[in-house]
């Protein structure tokens, strides 16, 4: 694909991510922190988010699968996931985490399991979107162009 098309695709794709609520302004803040001395900062932070989130999701599955659910532990994990998703601007993941915490407070196992399913769904959706975004950035750079700045 030629450079101009790649850049247009990047702009459209990124705009849609914000419009559809997958990302919020916090993601833009991360992009603004990136510079020539740390050209992969956003990728590094998001990669950490992926690793951390998948560990937390596995832990949540295990904890909610117990005969006697430790809701304090569930809440602690959800709190951490909410925090890290807010930090990278993964808005939809953060919002589901907020609902999840309410279910923890109510000690509602069925509600928690539903929330876990939703948060998984939102997490893997945003992961896939971000991976596409990073692929597009890589393609643009490989084609000798620069990644459009949308802020």
């Amino acid at each position, binding site marked *: 694909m030629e450079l101009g098309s790649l850049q247009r695709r990047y702009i459209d794709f990124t705009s849609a991510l914000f419009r559809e609520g997958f990302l919020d302004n*916090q993601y833009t*803040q*991360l992009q603004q*922190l990136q*510079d020539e001395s*740390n050209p992969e*900062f956003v990728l*590094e*932070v998001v990669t*950490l*988010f992926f*690793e*951390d989130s998948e560990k937390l999701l596995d832990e949540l599955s295990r904890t909610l699968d117990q005969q006697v659910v430790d809701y304090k532990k569930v809440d*602690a994990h959800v*709190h*951490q996931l*909410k*925090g*890290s998703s*807010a*930090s*990278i601007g993964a808005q939809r993941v953060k919002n589901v985490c907020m609902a999840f915490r309410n279910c923890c407070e109510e000690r509602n196992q069925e509600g928690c399991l539903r929330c876990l399913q939703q948060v998984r769904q939102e997490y893997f959706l945003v992961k896939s979107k971000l991976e596409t975004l990073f692929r597009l950035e890589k393609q643009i750079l490989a084609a000798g162009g620069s990644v459009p700045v949308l802020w």
Partner: protein
Amino acid sequence: MEEVKEEGEEMDVNDCGGGGLEVVRVLVVDDSPVDRKIVEMLLRRSEGIFDVVSVDSGKKAMEVLGLNEIEAKPPNHDDQKIDIVLTDYCMPEMTGLDLLKAVKANSSSRSIPVVMMSSENDSERISSCRAIGAEDFILKPLQVKDVQRLRTYTVPIGPMSKRGSKRKLPMALIAESNGAEARPLLAKVAAFGSAVFLTLNFWRSSVMSSSCN
């Protein structure tokens, strides 16, 4: 992730950040690797003002501060010289509140400003931290303006103390009107202006003088 610097590694006394201001060494304490990385970058991007040491637990923070023994040893030449602690509130095992209490309970570390970070805007939490001696309470995710004002908590006025030998006269407080409802402590300090700032630093100088004897 920034590794804790080696024991015995000293800061260059002539090490100045942007604009001739001296470098402030910040101890960042956060169990979230994502948040730690972001805060480190925010600090590093602040015009060379900050030198960052980061750890992932309150326990490790205690080690860096030399507080991990039953009887804390007095500060010596080889200890990490931390100018300010920036700690998350919610951490497993040792919370940020526990760390704040430990720092303020110990004569060798009491004068080090501690700033709390949290994703929860909980007024009770903020009040209890303030009561124990936290300088400020910042909502996560942190922004550039949040880290820039950290410097204002580290600069004493008057004669240079042993710990403050690299510090210069204080900068003016930057009044915050944006989002003040989420940062009630800072809104109060801004309202009192320089009078509060001078009083606070006079107190700090007095504590530092007595702790160095």
